[in-house]
């Protein structure tokens, strides 16, 4: 590890930091260091371990193994309070301020000396708030209520807190995610000023151009491991992308067997201002798995919700089986033959308190129960059919949904939607939080469904999954579909499209 010669001891050093959650190894022995007066970018795909690393540095998570040194001294049992007193501050994407209090009060809450009984010196509070805000270049009224501030203004308040606390290590987690270009420039100016004052900054961003504009060094994480730290001037964008994805896609995915048939879904210029989706055009054919890749927040789930009528479209057209439709509600979408297996199956998929059979029939009441009378036999038969078909491991159709493992819950959720006999099946993160065995089972299931003539849209943040399962891959970025790549496209090209690189060349 080369440390820059100007600073004898780095501000912060992590050695072999490791952290597991349940059976998932989020960090597997990462080395990381931060020098005074540098901006050190942290880069990686969704789930590469960036957040975990940050939370270890801020004391929110205790590492299972490894060592943390701050200013050359080893720190044991770092807590958030201890981290703060050591001069570590974190500015999150969503500022954690109290919306009903003023800017000065918010800053005061962080910086005033502790003690519930002390008198508040309002005048000093205001004066300090004004001084700190001035240092960030913000022209904010210390007496303004935080709820009236924009997101970037709130970020500046957070930065003012960090400065006021005398932070020497500032972590910024995707600070520009919701900023306009001008706000971004102002933020950069503040970051550069902090750097000039000798503060070390850990900067997380998905936007490569920012890293090249701002950072001195960059560390790339992949699957919980550091795959290298480089000086920004020594590396290219293509090199960074390669580092981020540079693994071979494992051959665990079932091969595509079906030749795609007729076009089932055709979307032209689809948009929905409320959902932040604009100008999306693509087609999905029967028997095809259309993968939707993109970073978290790129608008994939939002697109699915527009197609399913949850946030009805206000622009463009949707054609299902050649017929123009405008789904205004999930009910209408289901009636048309669209099914949507939502992302968060614990919250909106399987109803944990309900028996499996009731869960499976929830979306087909009108068909299964004509006249509104429940038919327990029909319900049980349908449930038993799916339990057998999808190999759901359960005590029986009467067992509550909550008694199942994650993978089996996902199958129940899938069964509910297959029961509607859809033409188009939209799967949102179908294998999230599912163990490896169940995952490949679900993959085989998706393949089988496609083979049976279903058009499948599969949203996934798991890049290997998208690459392995998709016949074609749509890549979303900033609420729109920026590229449609053929199946078998390499990970770097998909990642480049997701990051907004090489849009002009198509597949880079």
């Amino acid at each position, binding site marked *: 590890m080369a440390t820059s010669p100007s600073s004898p001891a780095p501000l912060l050093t992590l050695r072999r930091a490791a952290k597991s959650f349940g059976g998932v190894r989020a960090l597997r022995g990462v080395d990381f260091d931060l020098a005074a007066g540098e901006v050190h970018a942290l880069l990686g795909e969704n789930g590469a371990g960036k957040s975990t690393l940050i939370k270890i540095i801020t004391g929110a998570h205790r590492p299972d193994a490894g060592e943390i040194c701050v200013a050359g001294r080893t720190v044991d049992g770092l807590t958030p309070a201890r981290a703060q007193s050591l001069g570590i501050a974190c500015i999150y994407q969503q500022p954690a301020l109290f919306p009903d209090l003023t800017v000065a009060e918010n800053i005061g809450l962080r910086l005033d000396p502790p003690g519930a009984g002390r008198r508040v010196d309002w005048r000093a509070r205001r004066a300090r708030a004004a001084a700190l805000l001035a240092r960030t270049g913000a022209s904010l009224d210390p007496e303004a209520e935080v709820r009236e501030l924009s997101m970037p203004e709130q970020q500046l308040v957070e930065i003012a807190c960090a400065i006021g606390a005398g932070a020497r290590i500032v972590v910024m987690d995707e600070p520009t995610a919701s900023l306009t270009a001008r706000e971004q420039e102002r933020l950069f100016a503040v970051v550069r000023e902090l750097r000039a004052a000798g503060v070390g900054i850990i900067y997380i961003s998905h936007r490569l151009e920012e890293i090249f504009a701002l950072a001195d060094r960059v560390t790339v994480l992949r699957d919980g491991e550091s795959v290298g730290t480089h000086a920004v001037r020594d590396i290219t964008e293509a090199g960074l992308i390669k580092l981020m994805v540079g693994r071979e896609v494992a051959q665990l995915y079932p091969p595509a067997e079906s030749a795609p048939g007729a076009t089932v879904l055709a979307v032209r210029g689809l948009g929905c201002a409320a959902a932040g989706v604009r100008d999306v055009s693509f087609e999905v054919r029967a028997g095809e798995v259309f993968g939707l890749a993109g970073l978290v927040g790129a608008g994939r789930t939002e697109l699915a919700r527009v197609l399913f009528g949850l946030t009805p479209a206000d622009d463009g057209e949707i054609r299902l089986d050649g017929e123009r439709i405008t789904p205004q509600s999930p009910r209408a979408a289901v009636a048309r033959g669209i099914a949507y297996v939502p992302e968060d199956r*614990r919250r909106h998929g399987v109803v944990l308190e309900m028996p499996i059979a009731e869960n499976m029939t*929830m979306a087909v*009441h009108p068909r299964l129960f004509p006249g509104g009378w*429940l038919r327990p036999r029909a319900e049980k038969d349908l449930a038993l059919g799916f339990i057998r078909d999808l190999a759901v491991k359960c005590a029986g159709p009467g067992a509550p949904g909550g008694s199942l493992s*994650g993978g089996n819950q996902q199958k129940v959720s899938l069964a509910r939607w297959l029961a509607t006999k859809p033409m188009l099946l939209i799967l949102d993160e179908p294998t999230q939080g599912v163990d490896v065995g169940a995952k490949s089972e679900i993959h085989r299931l998706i393949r089988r469904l496609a083979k049976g003539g279903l058009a499948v849209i599969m949203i996934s943040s798991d890049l290997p999954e998208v690459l392995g399962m998709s016949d074609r891959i749509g890549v979303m970025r900033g609420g729109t579909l920026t590229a449609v790549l053929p199946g078998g496209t390499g990970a770097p090209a998909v990642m480049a499209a997701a990051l907004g690189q090489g849009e002009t060349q198509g597949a880079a």
Partner: protein
Amino acid sequence: MKRYFREISVTLALGLVLLGLAVFAPAFYQPQPLLSLVTREAPTLVIACGMALVIICRQIDISVGSQFSVCSVAAGLLAAHGWPLPLVVVAAAVIGAGLGAVNGVLVAGLRLPSIVVTLATMVTLRQGLNLLRQGEFVNLPDGVQWFGLSQTAGQWTLVGAALAVLVACGLAMRHLAAGRWVYAVGTDAEAARLAGIRPQLVTFLVFVLLGALTGLAAMMNIVQSPQVQPLAGAGLELKVIAAVVVGGVSISGGRGNVWGAFAGLLLLACVAPALTHLRIEAYWEKAIQGAIILLAVVADGLRSRPGKGGRG
């Protein structure tokens, strides 16, 4: 068995109380006083059925007492104007349904929290009634009390009607798809919506149903005396909600049934006569009822909550 643990335990508790009374206070079982006791509780049972549905739907309505008073006075005035009795019964239910619809629109349509909405309607209805009527009693014409029947026949009619409502609600919740929707919406409204169920419509309708049943209950109450008391519904909401919660309907929605609410109501209703027959001072009634409610709520709180685990 495990699924109906709460209902079974309430029924067992009720059985124990009844058994204890049989041993220590056999006078409790004299037919006429017992029939009177049951008749007095009949209107409460009808409201409790509606309330059970509202609470299963993860809502609450604390304005039922005021709705009850308004319906009572309105029905009394209509009867005094010479409307035929069957029409008055229908009118009471329709007025109640209208009041329930107001709550329903505010809760389901505007998505306001039901506790606040019904607190507001509770106060508004009560004060509005006071303002209009100044607490005046309504004298009912002849032929209204006990529907013009003998007292015993009237009492049996009321008890029969209340049991009919109970059975209808119980069967509907079990055998109609609509009953399933109430449970689904109360457990997870978003999942229900994704499945094509309309949570707002279901929520609106349970409030309307509760209102209609409250109107019916008001009618069942006024026929028991020659005059309509404008404050008849005061405090009724607490009694009804307590019965429903004691009967195993989860205040956080999604579970319970009207049968449990029935057992809960009887259990609470037995406290006062039991004390009298056991010669314990009546001051203890509220304390014992409170203890029963507390026990029920604690039992709910201790029930395992499967949704609580972290992300895997």
